[in-house]
């Protein structure tokens, strides 16, 4: 599967499938890794473009050399004619024609190689655009995949596929509250009992006090003393 196909799998909503395939891998790591691989390929491709441009330059250098040679022999032919040396002029023109043939050959090759190099550069540009597109959509891709993951988890919870259920917790909480209520009621009863006991003790105490007063009055009468309470 190509880099883009893999990223598109995530984008086209097949995130779950992709997550399954990549097992426990973090989706963010996966997307970033894919972009990194694309960048590696881009650098490799740039190096290949260097080769195609170098091939153009090499043949262009030969073409320029051939052109200079043509001009050189043309000049020599003129000089020979001016000096009325026709044979020499003929030889110079033969050399010129040889150079001309080479010039045409290299010119043709240079044009063909230039076309190839330009095509490679266009392909490289396309690759660059794809990387930029993937980088722009990186956050979107990660968010979509994370969302899909979250949806799966929620669905699993709702379907009761997991061992844990939130309803159990509610039950536990409810019974806890019941217990607390029961305990509170029990403590109220205990308090009532305690309060009753306290009152009785007070009254008993009150009775105790009355008997002391009686005895005091009796003693005073015996001693001929006037009772101050009267």
């Amino acid at each position: 599967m190509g880099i883009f196909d893999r990223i598109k799998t995530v984008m086209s909503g097949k995130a779950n499938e992709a997550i399954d395939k990549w097992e426990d891998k973090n989706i963010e790591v996966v997307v970033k890794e894919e972009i990194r691989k694309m960048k590696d390929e881009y650098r490799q491709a740039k190096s290949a473009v260097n080769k195609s441009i170098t091939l153009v330059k090499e043949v262009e250098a030969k073409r320029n050399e051939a052109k200079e040679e043509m001009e050189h022999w043309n000049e020599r032919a003129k000089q020979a004619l001016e000096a009325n040396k026709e044979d020499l002029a003929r030889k110079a023109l033969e050399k010129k024609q040889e150079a001309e043939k080479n010039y045409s050959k290299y010119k043709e090759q240079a044009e063909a190689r230039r076309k190839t190099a330009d095509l490679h550069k266009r392909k490289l540009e396309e690759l660059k655009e794809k990387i930029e597109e993937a980088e722009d959509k990186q956050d979107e891709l990660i968010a979509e995949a994370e969302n899909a993951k979250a949806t799966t988890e929620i669905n699993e919870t709702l379907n009761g596929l997991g061992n844990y259920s939130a309803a159990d917790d509610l039950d536990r909480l409810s019974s806890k509250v019941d217990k607390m209520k029961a305990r509170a009621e029990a403590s109220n009863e205990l308090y009532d009992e305690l309060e009753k006991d306290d009152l009785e003790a007070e009254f008993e105490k009150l009775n105790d006090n009355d008997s002391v007063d009686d005895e005091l009055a009796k003693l005073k009468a015996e001693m001929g003393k006037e009772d101050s309470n009267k």
Partner: protein
Amino acid sequence: MGFFDFLKSKPEEKNKVIARNPLNLQVEDIVEYDLVEYKVIGKLIYEEGGYIWYDYHLFDGQEHLWLGAEDDDELEIGLYKKLDVNHQLYVQLQDEIPRKLTYEGKDYTLIESGNANIRAEGRVGAKTGQRVQYWDYEANDGSEISVEKWGNELEISIGQEVKESLLEYYPGAKSGE
């Protein structure tokens, strides 16, 4: 065979291609500027007090240019052309290096000077271990004049600041740093 098939048919290379920037270009890389492709045919590494900057010798088959790059707070890139040795500026600067100079009606001010150690690669007309004295002039519009003294020989280059976004690099056979 298509372009990408050609790429994929190659066995896994030991050295992955390292992305190029103006501070790690290598001899044999191709630099494209204003739609012209130049081959890096030489590289000069300048060092002064631990500070490093670069000059790359570029050739497009007809014209020779020098691409200067330094990371001084921000990346500074300039494209220079050697001034013809018969220019009167050579005579003017041979005896004295002024604070200000005029070239083609434009005023330039000396902004930097010093001595640097040289590391040389490829075709640069210099050798590793050489020292160079330099003076950098700048005009208001960003035009630059670089003056270098190699031994007793002066080298003057006229240049212009270049935006990095206008440069494209195609790495060559050397893996890069």
